[in-house]
């Protein structure tokens, strides 16, 4: 965090730049980079595709907001010209994305296909990976992808380790202690693993599902499946939409449960939804939406909280009181009620088209979430603002913004991390609650959202179709527990002395 070398700070001669240290002893770095390159090449298309999707949504949302604000305040002309710029940027991103997704990747559904059909009543499978049963082909692919993701994560960590051992100037920094403490914190490591698993789902979702969101959920009537029909005794062709229609899970009689095949030779790891769509694919799509929204929201509220926390600590007095009033004002309205209110007011507004409603949710969580984080940061920021080094920097004329950034932020960022990961659970829960309520709140249909799956299965909890509500809920519980565990681990790693419950309320999602 605060410990990387900044060459311009040098006060004596023996500081060398990172490049010269790399040149002096290139072997460990080269070895690491070689493996990293292999790992990257394996899944290059997926990485670029995922990054560009997020970038696309961000550009759309941010420029859209700027255009709308300027259009309201200055003139309509500016709005249209910004919209033109926006359209051209977006089309460029789109074209890069489509070429990136065209690059063959090793762990894709094309190399290890699981969608095939039988050739006879009990006959061999065709078109699946090496003629395996779809269940096995799918399991193989999922296992490989998860292993790959964990190897990548380990390798990134290894990169930091190599940097620390071979190339860092300092023998020891406080970050080393934090990381060592986190490594031996079993509960915290559990949290890291869970979060990694969900990040994998979000990033590799399209390759993890037995089918894709596009083919199974967005435009099922534009895609076809082949299957062996027991009635006609031969392989038939049908649209995915028709197949879905006859694979619904609606209680006894019509049900496709977890780990089973429907009558169209399709395998459903989590069973199907009430409309016959594949629940696993739906959940993977939902993971991407959830992680994106939570990421943007946390980033936004942490940014606001850090800036305001340092400003209120640095200037204190009236400024502090003003921020306090605003923060209290936002939290004085129960968060969930505020969220429901704003999402209902904006239901059907153009902003719900950005990221299928996720962008509005992210902004809402960002704007309503920062007071909690600000409270957590304000105390430590007040403490550090009274330190001598801040006084010293002030007296030799450093600009306030620079003082806050260089001398206060490094001290505060740890607390920010702890409370940010603790409030993630609340955001996940509240977000799925909004999608559960439906009626234009939350993520818009048919884009997958975990809360909507729970809503769909509401009437089938005590029927053979219990999986529809149960599995999405269990996944939410797992993710929230993981985020809480990560928060606990970080807290113990960063500041082993503190043990407080201030993060407890935020983790509950305003009662959702």
């Amino acid at each position, binding site marked *: 965090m605060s410990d990387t070398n900044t060459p311009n700070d040098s006060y004596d001669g023996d500081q060398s730049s990172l490049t010269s240290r790399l040149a002096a002893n290139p072997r460990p770095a080269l070895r690491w980079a070689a493996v990293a390159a292999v790992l990257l090449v394996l899944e290059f298309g997926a990485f670029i595709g995922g990054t560009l999707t997020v970038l696309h949504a961000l550009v759309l949302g941010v420029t859209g907001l700027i255009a709308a604000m300027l259009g309201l305040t200055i003139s309509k002309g500016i709005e249209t010209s910004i919209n033109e710029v926006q359209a051209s940027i977006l089309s460029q991103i789109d074209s890069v994305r489509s070429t990136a997704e065209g690059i063959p990747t090793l762990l894709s559904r094309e190399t290890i296909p699981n969608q095939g059909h039988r050739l006879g009543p009990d006959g061999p499978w065709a078109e699946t990976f090496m003629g395996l049963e779809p269940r096995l082909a799918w399991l193989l692919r999922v296992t490989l992808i998860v292993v790959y993701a964990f190897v990548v994560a380990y390798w990134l960590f290894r990169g930091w380790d190599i940097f620390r051992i071979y190339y860092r100037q300092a023998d020891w920094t406080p970050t080393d202690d934090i990381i060592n403490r986190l490594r031996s914190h079993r509960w915290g490591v559990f949290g890291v693993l869970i979060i990694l698993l969900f990040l994998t789902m979000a990033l590799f979702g399209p390759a993890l599902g037995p089918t894709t969101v596009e083919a199974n959920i967005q435009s099922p009537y534009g895609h076809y499946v082949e299957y062996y029909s027991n009635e006609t005794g031969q392989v038939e062709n049908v649209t995915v939409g028709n197949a879905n229609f006859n694979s619904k899970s609606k209680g006894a009689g019509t049900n496709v449960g977890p780990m089973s095949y429907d009558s169209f030779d399709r395998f459903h790891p989590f069973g199907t939804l009430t409309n016959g769509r594949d629940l696993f694919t739906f959940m993977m799509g939902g993971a991407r939406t959830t992680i994106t929204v939570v990421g943007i929201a946390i980033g936004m509220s942490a940014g606001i909280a850090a800036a305001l926390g340092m400003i209120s600590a640095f200037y204190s007095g009236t400024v502090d009181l003003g921020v*306090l*009033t*605003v923060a*209290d*004002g*936002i939290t*004085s*309205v*129960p*968060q*969930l*009620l*505020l969220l*429901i*209110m*704003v999402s*209902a*007011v*904006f239901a059907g*507004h153009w902003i719900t088209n950005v990221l299928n409603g996720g962008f509005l949710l992210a902004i809402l969580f960002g704007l309503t979430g920062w007071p909690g984080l600000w409270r957590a940061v304000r105390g430590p920021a007040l403490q550090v603002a009274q330190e001598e080094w801040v006084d010293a920097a002030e007296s030799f004329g450093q600009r306030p913004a620079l003082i806050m950034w260089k001398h206060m932020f490094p001290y505060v960022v740890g607390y920010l991390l702890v409370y940010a990961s603790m409030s993630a*659970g609340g955001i996940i*829960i509240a977000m*799925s*609650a909004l999608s*559960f*309520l439906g*009626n234009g709140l939350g993520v818009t249909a048919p884009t997958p959202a975990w*809360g909507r799956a*729970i809503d769909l*299965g*509401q*009437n*089938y*909890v*005590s*029927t053979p179709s*219990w999986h529809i*509500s*149960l599995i*999405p*809920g269990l996944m*939410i*519980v797992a993710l*929230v*527990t993981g985020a*809480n565990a990560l928060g606990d681990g970080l807290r113990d790693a960063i500041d082993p002395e503190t*043990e*407080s*419950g*201030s993060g*407890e*309320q935020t*983790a*509950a*999602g*305003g*009662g*959702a």
Partner: protein
Amino acid sequence: MNKLVYLGKRIALAIPVVLFGLTMAFLILYAGPLDPVYSILGRKASEADIQRLLVDLGYRYPNGQEVPLWDQYRMVMTDLFTLNFGQSWVVQRGRPIIDLIGARMSATIWLGWWSVVIALFVGIPVGLFAGLRANTFSDYFASAGGILWRAMPNFWLAVILSGLLSAGGALSFYRDWGADYGLATKVVGTPPEVNNLFNVIPLFDGIPVLEMLFLPIPELQNMAVAFKWILPGALVLGSASMGNEVRIARTAVLESINSKYVETARAKGVSARRIVFKHVGRNALIPLLPIIMGEFYLLIGGSVLVEAIFGINGLGSLYLRAIFQTDIPVIMTLTFIFTIILVVFNITQDLLYTIVDPRISLDDVEG
């Protein structure tokens, strides 16, 4: 600092806070893209009707001129703070909002009361128990339970529980429990008994002013039925807080049990029971206080979802209906009431702090 001075200061500071929150709600509802006229009159309204309605709702003056946002703001705020809540626009058009709220209030209070009480009476003992037996199997079991219990979304728990309780579900026997004592209940919908929990006996019939005093006699049978009916919802609503209470009570016990004063008490022969209740329990209460108070915060938000799923006709479901039907005055009034309740609880919490733990000075809890 004197407690009264402190209280006055806190209230003075709370005014801008409440005002900010309500202004935010006002701007969202009145300046945002809502169309109450459409939701009242529908698509096929005549121009004259629309005009009349706009005047009625306070958006236009009778001469057809638009009321500026600032004037609308002043009107809405004065009405709220003088407790003149007006009438519902859509949910039950023309009915005074105070009536609407009064009719639904008892269900929400009944639900909320039991969710707090159950959470307290389950969560704290379990947490104390786990803390006193730290690092045993039962401790791990209780702690893990607390962690999972608070990670479960209320609405999901409600869906699963109401599904299990429904006909054909694994818990459907619950409804017929105690049928011999007249306790067979439904589990979905508002218990009708909730409005007859007390037999109100006037004390001074016919004497002016004093006739407002009355003696509430609990109607035990009605209370039992209403309790059994509302129990699943209350369990769900209290779940997150219960998990928190287990965790906090456990760590609080662990902290105080290793302290010197407990050792001293043990050395001079104080009984184990007395140590747990007097020395450990009271100190463990301090960090629990914000959690207990925070429960009210979770309760207000959570009641919206729990009431919607269990079909309880309370304030939470009223809020949801008002939102979906663009009944702006009802939304504004409920927001006002909830905000005031929250702020009052916040101030109470800080005052209670100083009573439970006299070491905390009134200056510490400010801000």
